[in-house]
Every structure is written in C-alpha cells, then in structure tokens.
C-alpha cells in the first residue's frame, strides 16, 4: 500500500514523477552497486482534465510503464507500492507538477520597477506564472486594473509595496483596489482567494482591515524591506505552502497524490530552479538554464550567486508555437531554415502544429522547421530574461563620470554573456533532438554565447524530478544529475566585439594524444572539433582583430584547457549578433555550410 518511508530511513529507491500539462513523466532512481543511478523511465498522458479528472491515473499509468520495463512492482492496490522490500516497491515517491496550467499569480507593488518587480521575482522564483503585475504607477486607469483583476482569476495574489516604514497611502490604495475587484479563485470551489501580503510591515493593520474579510489573507515579511535589498525567501515559502494547501488540494486527484508523496509536491519550474542554483553553487560558476516546453519557456540564471527565473508564458513549441511566429515574425524564423520554402505553406504548418500540439516531425524538413522555430522561441525568451534579471532598481549608487556617460546604473542586466560559464538546455526539442549537435547549435544560435561557454542538455528531462529529490537527498540528486541527467555537449568559443570581414581568430589545439591542430578562421564560419569532456583539449585562441575578445581582453590570446562533450568544441566566428543574409539565394548556402560543419542532419536527406 502507499506509504512514503524506508525502513531505518535509508532510502535505496525512489520513484519520481512530473505531472506536466500533457504528459506525466516517471523515472526510477535506484542505489546500485555503482552508486545512485536513474534506471528506467516511462510516461503517460496527464489525466487532470475531463473525462478522467484524476491526476493519479496518469501517475499510475506512467508508473506501470516503468514497472513493465524494470520488472519492479511499483503499483499496488491503486497506489504506489512502498517501501522497497527485496527489490519490489520503492522507498519513496516524490512528484512535481505543472498540470492544469501550473501556478498562476497576480502580483502588485507600489512602483512597477521596484516593489512590484521584487514581488514578481519572488513569484517567479517560486515557480509561478505571473499573469499580470499591478502598481500605483500603472499606466492603466484604476477601474481598468480592477476589471483586469476580476477577469484573471489567479490561484493567488502576492501584494507587496513600500519599504518598511515607507509609504502607507499607496499600499493601502493597492489593497483597496484588490478589495474592490473581489477576485475569485481559478478553480472555484467556494474557497476564498489566498492573498499574500509581503509589503510595508507598518501597514499590516490597514491591510487586514481591507482584505481579511474578502480573502484568505496571509502576512509575511516584506519582499523589499529596504531599497537596497530584497528578501524573497519568506514570500516564496508562503507561495509554496499555499500552492499545496489551496491550489493542489483543489485540483482533481491531488488530495490523493499528496497523501502518496514523501515530501511536498513542488511546482515544476521551482524544482528546476533548485537544480540550477545547486549547479552554480557547487561549481562556483555562472549558469543560464532553459526549459522549453509546449506552452511556455522558462529561463533561469545564476550570476554571482543571484538567482533569477522568468517564464515566457506564450513561447513554446506546440500550444504556443503560433505565438512564436507572431512575436518573432516569419523572416526571423525563415532565416534559420536551410532550404527554400513557400511562406504561406510554412504559416499553415505552424498553425497545424498549434491545433494538433502532440504531433512530432516525421520528415527531416519538418524537423528543420521546428528547430528553426525553437531558435526564435529560445532567443525571445532569453531576451525577456535578460531584461528582467537586473540589478535592483531604485538603489542609489555612487557613479563616476564614465558611468554617467554610459547612461547605465541600477537596472543593468545581471546576465553578462562574457561571464557566462555554462548553458543548460532542457525540454523536448532540446532533450529529444535526434542528434546532439542539433541541440548545441540551437542553443548557440539562440543565446549567442560570447568568449568561452560550456553547453549541456538534460538527457531525458529529469531536472524537475532531481530538483525535488535534492530536498530529500542532496547526494543522490547530485550523483544522478552528473551521471545520468546532464549531458555535456561541449564548449563554444566565440569572439565578442565589433567584427570586420577577413581573418578573425587563430585557433591552436593540442590534443590529449599530443597531436596538434591549427586553423585561422574568417568571419561567418563555424568549426566543430570532436573533443571529450575530460581531459579536454589545450587551446590557444588568438584574436586577429584588436577589437575582438575571446576572454583574455580585446586582441589578447587566451590559453586554457577547453572541455568538450558528445559534440565537442565549436568555434564560432559568425559575429554577435549572428549575421545572416536576408536574400534566400545567399542565406541557404551559408546555412548549409553551418549544418555541414556541425554534421547536424543526414546527408542527402530531404529539405
């Protein structure tokens, strides 16, 4: 029967599921003689919606698939069999969830770029989708904002505003606006909408007076107690608590699911964020991660220890694929398509993917089109992330004359491409690309890494599972992450700076067996060199133009060991931004050259 703990607390096997909008993915993690390994996986359609309306059916179906493959009994009496007795059952069952549209929040703050932004960061960090953000300096009229709050029907509202001891009037005005809207919960059920207040602590009595009677009001620490610092953890924790108590408890079948799990169910992006932070912390590096799904694309970054997450709610590869077309525009997608194509036909194909989102590309031509769209979805999501992941605004800084001329200051993006050490990609189009070189090039084209950047993918989409596992057993999560989850694709070396045509950089490599290889690259080239992750290759990269920097400073040579991966090293002199001719006759041969350089597609294939 379902239970959650192992005898003597020693966990030897874990079943982890992620209940996504469309698919429930289950993985089995076992302590083998070789250490912790992810051994089997299975999946089944998610069953939150009618006609099933019970998430556990999808969970059991996915678990059954793992059971059939592994020979280990996992399902018993309509539940997950625990504990593990002589290789049957598991010691713990854990889960993440983004089913039913995930966790949807509305946030509010006094100043849009200050406390409202802090509230947004807290909500996003907790794994939520921010449906809208309201502020006292909102360009919309108050009655328009009220109307919008009424229409949205979020899972909860996070209300910030004011530093401690700061404005009272504006914070109270926000609360009055929310009270006037009398917002209702998305899932109904006669519950009061949870409202988390995380603003000026001196205004709490006023907030209670206005919101306590119309909502399930929860008070927590201010997300921005002083202008110079954020304090997001208490609000994030409160969001997680309420996610379990209110949102999950009302979703079909989750009451049962919650009784099965050993630790609280986490929102999927919250679990992925945990993993990203762990990588950055353990290796002491700056990391950017992306999880591109059917409906949304999540981007995570950890720069100098500062974690940020954004979710581009309408950039995805199936449900939202037409929105990628709408936002990027057809020419931006076409610039990545390495063959001639009729524009109307391409629009219809994209529309058909939107209305039949679970289909997969059967032909090579269809695959190339999907990967072209993915580049734009990733690029747009990353731009949105860079705009959001910024230094705190409103902080007074000492500025030099040079800073004043640069017109920058607080509000600068934290995502500095030259300082980025590792990009990790996840999601179907990246994890399941038939060739890993396709994933590597999609990420290089979309993120345009500068200088030296390692690139990796989540092998089979298991970062959410490992994120929640890390809350139970950090050692097991790290071991499985390094051995079965992350696949190092290789390292991209790309000069940063104004690039003129002609010779760009000289690359000299000393392979592990002592052989040497050298090449002078001109602008517009890609060069891929097979190279293992360990021990890597000793390289000296010398910019041949004084404005170009490969990591040692403009015009200066860089000598270091570059780590490869299943693809290897990729030297990229296509410029930043990557230059692609608009005329089809010039564009297609150039793209064909890049495809050949990376051995991306079978030769002589269609398209």
């Amino acid at each position, binding site marked *: 029967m379902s239970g959650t703990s192992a005898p003597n607390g020693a966990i030897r096997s874990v079943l982890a599921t992620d209940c996504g909008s469309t698919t429930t993915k289950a993985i089995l993690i076992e302590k083998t003689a070789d250490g912790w390994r992810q051994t089997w996986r299975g999946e089944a359609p998610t069953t939150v919606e009618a*006609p099933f309306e019970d998430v556990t059916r999808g969970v059991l179906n996915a678990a059954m698939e793992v059971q059939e493959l592994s020979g280990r009994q996992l399902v018993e009496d309509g539940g997950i069999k625990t504990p593990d007795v002589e290789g049957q059952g598991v010691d713990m069952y854990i889960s993440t969830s983004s089913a039913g549209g995930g966790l949807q929040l509305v946030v509010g703050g006094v100043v849009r770029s200050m406390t409202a932004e802090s509230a947004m960061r807290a909500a996003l960090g907790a794994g939520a989708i921010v449906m809208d953000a309201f502020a006292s300096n909102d360009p919309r009229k108050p009655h328009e904002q009220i109307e919008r709050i009424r229409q949205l029907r979020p899972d909860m509202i996070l209300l910030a505003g004011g530093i401690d001891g700061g404005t009272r009037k504006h914070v109270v005005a926000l609360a*009055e606006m929310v009270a006037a809207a009398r917002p209702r919960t998305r899932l109904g059920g006669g519950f009061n909408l949870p409202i988390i207040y995380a603003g000026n602590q001196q205004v709490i009595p006023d907030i209670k007076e206005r919101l306590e009677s119309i909502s399930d009001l929860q008070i927590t620490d201010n997300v921005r107690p002083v202008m110079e610092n954020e304090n997001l953890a208490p609000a994030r924790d409160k969001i997680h608590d309420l996610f379990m108590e209110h949102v999950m408890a009302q979703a079909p079948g989750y009451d049962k699911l919650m009784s099965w799990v050993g630790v609280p169910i986490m929102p999927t992006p919250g679990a992925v964020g945990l993993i990203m932070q762990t990588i950055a912390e353990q290796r002491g590096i700056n990391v950017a991660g992306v999880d591109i799904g059917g409906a949304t694309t999540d981007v995570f970054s950890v720069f100098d220890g500062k974690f940020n997450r954004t979710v581009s709610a309408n950039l995805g590869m199936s449900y939202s694929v037409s929105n990628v077309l709408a936002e990027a525009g057809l020419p931006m997608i076409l610039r990545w398509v390495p063959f001639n194509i009729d524009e109307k036909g391409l629009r219809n194909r994209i*529309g058909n993917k*939107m*209305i039949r989102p679970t289909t997969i*590309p*059967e032909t090579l031509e269809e695959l190339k089109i999907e990967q072209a769209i993915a580049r734009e979805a990733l690029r747009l999501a990353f731009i949105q992330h860079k705009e959001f992941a910024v230094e705190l605004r409103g902080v007074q800084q000492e500025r030099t004359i040079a800073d004043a001329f640069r017109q920058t200051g607080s509000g600068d993006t934290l995502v500095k491409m030259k300082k980025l050490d590792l990009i990790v990609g996840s999601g179907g189009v990246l994890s*399941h690309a038939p060739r890993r070189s396709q994933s590597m090039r999609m990420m290089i084209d979309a993120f345009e890494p500068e200088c030296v950047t390692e690139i990796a993918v989540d092998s089979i989409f298991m970062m959410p599972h490992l994120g929640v596992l890390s809350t139970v057993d950090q050692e097991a999560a790290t071991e499985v992450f390094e051995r079965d989850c992350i696949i190092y694709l290789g390292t991209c070396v790309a000069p940063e700076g104004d690039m003129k045509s002609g010779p760009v950089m000289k690359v000299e490599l000393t392979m592990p067996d002592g052989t040497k290889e050298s090449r002078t690259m001109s602008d517009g080239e890609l060069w891929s060199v097979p190279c293992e992750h360990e021990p890597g290759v000793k390289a000296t990269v010398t910019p041949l133009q004084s404005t170009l920097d490969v990591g040692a400073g403009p015009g200066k040579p860089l000598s270091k060991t570059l780590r490869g991966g299943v693809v290897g090293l990729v030297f990229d002199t296509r410029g930043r931004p990557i230059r692609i001719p608009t005329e089809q006759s010039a564009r297609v041969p150039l793209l064909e050259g890049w495809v050949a350089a990376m051995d991306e597609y079978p030769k002589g294939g269609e398209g």
Partner: protein
Amino acid sequence: MAAIFTPGLTVTEQHIVQKTRQLPLEGEVTVAVGDLVKADDVVAKTSLPGKVFPVNVANQLGVDPGRLNGYMKKGVGDRVTKDEIIAETPGIMGFFKSEAKAVVSGTIEAVSTVTGIVIVQADPIPVEIDAYIDGRVVEVIEGEGCVVQAMATMVQGIFGLGGETKGVIAMAAYEPDDVIGPEHITADHKGKVVIGGSYVTIAGLKKAVEVGAAALVTGGFDYDEIKELLGYEVGVAITGGEELGTTLIVTEGFGKIGMAPATFALLKKRAGDRASVNGATQIRAGVIRPEIVVTDDAEIPTERVAAPEPVGIAQGDLIRGIRAPWFGRIGTVSGLPVQPIQVGSETTVRVLEVDFGEGDTALLPRSNVERIER
C-alpha cells in the same frame, strides 16, 4: 487487443450530447430536472456586478483623507445617480464650495480615510443563458446552471472562431473537395449554417459575414488569413470570443484540405435541419473543440447518461494523418508494432501501420494520427 490513446474528433450521427450551461456568477436557475427545453429557452440568469470606479474625492475637495467622512453626503451602500453630488465642503459663508459628483450611476462601495478614494460600483448587468440545444434538463447545478441532454448528430471541428450561434444547415459545396469563394455565398445564406468543402477563400468568408450567415464550416482555411480577418494573429488556440458575425469552423486544419468524406456526408444528410454551432476552441487545459450539434426528436433519456470511457486506437479503426507527409490522409489501422522505429527525421518513435487502401500501407508515428470517432 492492443490499443493506444490519442484524442480524436467526434463525427457521429447518433450521439448522446450533454451541454453544461453555466452562469459566469451565481444566479437563478429557471428550469428543473426533467424539463424539456428548446435551444433558445432561457435556463439561468444573473446580474454581473457593474464596473467599479475609484475616484479620489479627498483630492477633488482638497481635504485631508482622514476627515473625508465629515464631507460625504452619501455613505457606503447608498445608491447614487450619475452627476449626483456625493461629497461637498461647506465653503465660506456658502461660497467657494467644493463638490464631488458620482461618475456613474450605482452604489457606493467604499470610502477610504487613508487614501481619500471613494469607490462607486455601477449598476449590475443582467445576463441570461439559453439551453443552446433542444433537449431535456438532466441536472441542475444549484445557483449556477444546468445540464441539457439530447440525442444528436455531432460533428467536432479542429479549430474555430466566434461563439455560439444557431441556424439551419445549408450546403454551399457539392463535394468535400470544393473550394468556396464569394460566388458560392448568396443572400439565401442569411442566418444559415453554411457547409463548404476543402477550403474557403478570405473573400468567401467575408461574403458569408456580409450576408449574415450564422456559421461557415470548411475543411481548411489559411492560417495567415486569420490576421486579415481579425486584425491580429491567434498565437495560442483559445478562441470563441471573436466578434466576427459569422462563426467559422475548420474541420481538418490550415491549408486546403478536403473535408473528411464522413463529415461532409453527415452534414449533407442533415441539411435543412437546425443546428447549434460553437466555434470556441481551447487546445490546452481542458480541450474544447468547435462543434456542430443537430438534435433529434428521438426519445431523450431522462437520466444523465455517463460519458463512455475514452477508448484508444485499435486495429481496424479509421484514422486520419495529422502531420506531413500524411496530413489529411484517411486510412485503417492494420497493425500496432511494439518496437519503436527510426523515421525520416531520425527520431525514434512508436508507430502504427495504416492501410490507405489499394495496397498502400505505411508506418506512421502514433502521435501523428487521430482516430475518427464514430
């Protein structure tokens, strides 16, 4: 027998249809279980709260918010009419008075002595919902609505624009492959549910809107024409609120695609009957497909009939290819091999074997077909 689960579209002549008719807010249900209702009958009604208008009255009067209550002529809960004075300062000897007027007719909801804002809620907006289809009420959802059940011909489309409408089915196409242009739409199509073939041109659709057709049903339509029609692109398939005037239902997909013969034949058979049509489409989080429902006079079960468990695709089932290179092709499942295979894109997937007739068989990815539910 082996089966796989891939959602399909319903195209069936005799089907028990249940429609939940629900108010957006709690209200009054005007029917009872067992009642026979007509499609246009009102089954529930309510009043939506009117818009809320916050006005900074303290600022208008030039007084401290903390003293606002002393100047209010109307209190919380009082009714006010537009331009009625709701607060006033005494002025000096009756002169130099400041006053604040109601910006809208409604009720005073709140007076804030912190911000000085007075919130006026406009009068409620009455809302009624009808039965949508002829049938019998089999369940009343207290204070919210009801479920109407009927025996009906049911055709689901893949994508639609525009909301609920009703009209008599009229054929504009002779064959499932016909292309409908403006020349095929006439004044006689006013208020009708017009059935096309493989494709409708943008001019044809605009003509349908112009003559006042209730709906237009077509196999295919060009995706880029949506922008011309609506003025914006539909980036995420959540539709139904468009105010086109004519509801559009696409049965097969974007492009020129012959309407499935079974769909065309069924609609042709019901020509002359009154249909209830809804273009609302939602692809994620509770799939909603657009539909054409033609109810029958047949005896309607008085008890709510439980929806059958969804069944998977099994050998012998009729399926439609929904992705290139088989898009729109209809065939019969002739095998369900267990082992995954590598397809042209080098993707390794589980497949099914499909017989397209005349010895033409192929292996298709399982996720690239949909069952035609009959």
